[in-house]
């Protein structure tokens, strides 16, 4: 029996997020990897293995990314788990350290969507529902339709999630969309996409990369502890399923992560969750237990989940504003939470944040309750002073 070891995130890095068709995946990744290595005060030579998350990256993308970063020779694993690819890469890196397989591991996520799709992601034609034209916005709109019917709520309430996250994103210099945040009316009057979802309630198609160095504890003043992490793939989702698609998958991952960490949702100070579409954030907050069933839709409107609220959610701007470079998203979420827990998040800082929740959900395969979901709980550095972070406001990474 292997005695599990404590695991920390020693360093994080990201590229900026946007549309960069001229920047190859290795170039995007290098920006994130070298920032993460420097942040961890380590070098490529000290990395034992690399886990790379990417959905549409070309065959061999992981090897090209690793070679370009000066890590050639390190065992390299490529992971595809839809939108959760980068988060699964993080989870597997965590397990590799925890179970003693490696000492220092790099998790990377990278995606370049701008050279593959001109608009929304084209549904996969070898999937029964993909072949039937079920684009991802429509899948989420179907979730929304069921949820709104179940709780007898107006679809217009969903728009508050976009208003909130785009206001957060305006404070994030790395966000894809960081202009003047839209008003509620502008979100509601933007182009209809599917059901209750308008254009500004859908994430942009982004290019970008993220990276994290994981190890056993080394630097108490900088290490962010992985308190628990759970990775689940969805069970069958069919005529016997009452909950919206993906809900049970997220709920079961969250329950296991909280149990691992010995925490409850009441302990969470800040969260980054999968808001590819506004309904995604609403359902996730209920699935992980931050909101009671049926109350998630009111959380953004009430200010509860905004910066300054009871429990800020997606202070980075979320997928709706920071962007959604599929395989990179989980590492971007992780980077934001590490900065938050260290007190380094500048204008986006959640005062006193000590415990954070990370959730990413990936889907697209018909008949299952999500391809993959990871929920992780993170604890801040032991010496972190919640009131005085090392950076001054406005100096966010």
């Amino acid at each position: 029996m292997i005695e599990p070891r404590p695991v920390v995130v020693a360093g994080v890095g990201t590229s900026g997020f946007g549309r960069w068709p001229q920047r190859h995946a290795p170039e995007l990744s290098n920006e994130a990897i070298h920032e993460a290595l420097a942040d961890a005060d380590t070098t490529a030579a000290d990395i034992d293995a690399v886990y790379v998350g990417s959905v549409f990256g070309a065959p061999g993308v992981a090897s090209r990314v690793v070679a370009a970063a000066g890590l050639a020779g390190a065992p390299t694993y490529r992971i595809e788990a839809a939108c959760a690819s980068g988060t699964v890469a993080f989870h597997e890196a965590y397990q590799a350290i925890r179970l003693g397989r490696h000492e220092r591991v790099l998790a990377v996520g990278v995606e370049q969507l701008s050279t593959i799709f001109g608009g929304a992601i084209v549904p996969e034609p070898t999937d029964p529902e993909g072949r039937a034209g079920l684009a991802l916005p429509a899948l989420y709109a179907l979730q929304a339709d069921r949820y709104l019917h179940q709780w007898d709520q107006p679809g217009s309430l969903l728009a508050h999630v976009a208003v909130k996250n785009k206001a957060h994103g305006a404070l994030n210099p790395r966000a894809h969309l960081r202009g003047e945040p839209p008003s509620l009316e502008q979100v509601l009057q933007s182009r209809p996409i599917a059901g209750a979802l308008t254009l500004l309630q859908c994430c942009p198609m982004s290019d970008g990369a993220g990276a994290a160095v994981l190890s056993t504890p080394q630097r108490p003043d900088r290490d962010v502890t992985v308190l628990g992490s759970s990775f689940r793939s969805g069970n069958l989702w069919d005529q016997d399923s009452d909950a919206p698609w993906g809900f049970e998958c997220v709920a079961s991952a969250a329950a296991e992560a909280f149990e691992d960490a010995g925490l409850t949702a009441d302990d969470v100070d800040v969260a980054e969750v999968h808001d590819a579409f506004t309904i995604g954030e609403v359902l996730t907050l209920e699935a992980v237990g931050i909101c009671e069933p049926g109350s998630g839709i009111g959380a953004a409107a009430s200010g509860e989940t905004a910066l300054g609220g009871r429990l800020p959610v997606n202070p980075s701007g979320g997928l709706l504003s920071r962007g959604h470079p599929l395989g990179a998203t989980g590492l971007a979420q992780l980077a934001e939470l590490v900065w938050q827990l260290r007190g380094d998040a500048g204008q986006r800082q959640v005062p006193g944040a000590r415990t954070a929740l990370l959730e990413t959900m990936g889907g697209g395969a018909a008949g299952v309750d999500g391809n993959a979901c990871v929920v992780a709980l993170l604890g801040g550095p032991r010496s972190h002073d919640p009131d005085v972070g090392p950076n001054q406001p406005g100096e966010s990474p």
Partner: protein
Amino acid sequence: MSKPLVPADPRPTVDGQHISGVQCEECGRASAFVDARCRRCQGAVRAAQFGPGGTVWASTTVHLTVDHREPPFTVAYVDLDNGPRVLALVNGEQSVPPQTRVNLVGEVQGDLLVEVAADD
């Protein structure tokens, strides 16, 4: 140089107002996927047909062009009576509320097509 072959269409096969699927001889689970064994219990399955009646679980009107489908079009998850949950096009441009009764009426370029039942 030869062209790659075209993969089989993974959508359920429509025969008039019914689809062809399987039903588990052990647990009774119905599926629109023609698998060799039950996805839930791994029991043996037999061929079965489902439809035409069903109930809308959720629906949405899509305002995007998706392949040959021009917007707006409406799709729905429909629980066929004693059968599987399937994705179908809804005849007409408007979404229909959950619990609405519908009938499978055929297919459009391989997509299942339902319409609201006359007595709903």
